[in-house]
């Protein structure tokens, strides 16, 4: 059963948890890391070098808001020096033309810019920051003026899903070539706010229909990536394409994790890049080997013919919803714990609770 481990394809570099936005579905952990605990510039430079040597091809600079780091330009340049293809994942709420043109000159290849809605008022309300939408709109223009390709990322949920047609128009007007319409995934802050975010089946089906029609109409003009909410599915998502198979995430304080939610798992010591080389961490650490491949699986995954397609779904979701990271992902209809997902879906039909906005505790 055991096969040799391939090198990772991509590194998610979570430079900071600082962010001017307070989105209630933020994927950062509920216990946010403060600036004092963040890796220093020279530590990130070493991580980028080790990542390239290990076989990482793409680096995604993310956060929090990565532009809150004053050394972002230097880190983009360092990534380029190491031959890494770099992507900036940003809220667009800090900085503008001057920064973006410097990033482009330093070798940045692409920008993914998030929006909270197409309508400015609802967008600002969800982001928890007045004027955020207007800043993002001018940021998009700065990205295009610098000649960089733009992906618009729209996180969708119960409180904005009806606007998908207008979101598509907005992405076209902003000059994006890609639009990511991503349903909220229920971890961290989003799990706290699940009842305020999870759409019902009817809302979901309507949005899915609109996306399918737009994909046909806009073929070759605007690529639309659509991430469906797994709670409404029958089989789980292939989370990260399998634990420790392709992706590696380094948190602001330097913990290496197989995905951005894995820090929530108890009983696993995630190694720090401060203590060891990335290659050792990837190939030899207990944390990265814990759920690699299929040997760890119990039933119903173990004998499932999809075990090497969805890799048992998401380990974090298994822990969060079933209390054990080694069980099948409860969103799978074959999971003995599937009832908890059905109960959550019933909440999607109930009264709308208020948001708990992201904050430092």
């Amino acid at each position, binding site marked *: 059963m055991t096969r040799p481990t391939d*090198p990772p*394809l*991509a590194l998610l570099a979570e430079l900071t948890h600082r962010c001017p936005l307070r989105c209630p579905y933020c994927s950062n952990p509920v216990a946010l890391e403060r600036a004092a605990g963040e890796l220093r510039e020279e530590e990130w430079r070493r991580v980028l070098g080790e990542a390239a*040597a*290990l*076989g990482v*091809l*793409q680096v995604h600079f993310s956060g929090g808001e990565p532009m809150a780091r004053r050394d972002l330009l230097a880190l983009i340049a360092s990534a380029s020096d190491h*031959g890494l*293809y770099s*992507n900036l994942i940003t809220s667009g709420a800090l900085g503008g033309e001057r920064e973006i043109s410097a990033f482009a000159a330093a070798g940045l*290849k*692409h920008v*993914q810019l998030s929006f909270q809605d197409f309508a400015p008022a609802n967008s600002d309300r969800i982001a928890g920051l007045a004027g955020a939408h207007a800043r993002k709109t001018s940021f998009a223009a700065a990205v*295009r*003026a610098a*000649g*960089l*390709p733009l*992906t618009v990322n729209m996180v969708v949920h119960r409180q904005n899903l009806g606007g998908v047609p207008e979101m598509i128009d907005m992405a*076209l*007007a*902003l*000059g*994006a*070539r*890609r639009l*990511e319409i991503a349903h909220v995934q229920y971890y961290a802050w989003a799990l706290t706010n699940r009842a305020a975010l999870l759409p019902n089946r009817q809302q979901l089906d309507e949005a899915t229909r609109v996306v399918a029609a737009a994909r046909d109409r806009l*073929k*070759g*003009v605007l*690529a639309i*990536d659509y991430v469906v909410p797994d709670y409404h599915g029958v089989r789980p998502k292939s989370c990260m394409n399998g634990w420790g198979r392709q992706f590696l995430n380094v948190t602001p304080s330097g913990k290496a994790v197989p995905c951005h939610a894995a820090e929530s798992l108890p009983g696993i010591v995630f190694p720090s890049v401060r203590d060891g080389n990335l290659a050792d961490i990837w190939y030899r650490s207990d944390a990265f080997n814990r759920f690699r491949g299929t040997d760890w699986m119990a039933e119903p995954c173990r004998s499932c013919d999809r075990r090497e397609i969805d890799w048992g779904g998401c380990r974090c979701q298994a822990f969060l919803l079933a209390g054990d990271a080694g069980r099948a992902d409860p969103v799978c209809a074959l999971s003995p714990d599937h009832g908890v997902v059905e109960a959550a879906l019933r909440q999607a039909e109930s009264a709308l609770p208020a948001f708990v906005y992201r904050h430092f505790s």
Partner: protein
Amino acid sequence: MAPSTDRLVVSAASILRLAPHIVFRFDEVRQRWTMLAPERLLLPDEQAVEILQLVDGKTSAGAIIDALAGRYTQAPRELIARDVTAMLQDLADKGCLTSDSSD
């Protein structure tokens, strides 16, 4: 920069090149060619690598097909033409190729 609203349709006359921000390079760690695109990563097979090496902003799609037909004389040219055009159209639809002329 104005948003592009037209689909690039590949024909024999199309002269294609890699779009800016597409990186086609040999990866020493994996010992294979890779194509890096915004939030996309392709590991082209041997045939695709051969085609991509001919996408240079000077050679037309028709000339690429001719070159490959010259190398693979046992395969009918129409079959090669169909496969090459389909692959180039797919890459164009993914935003990986551009053309200077609009044909």
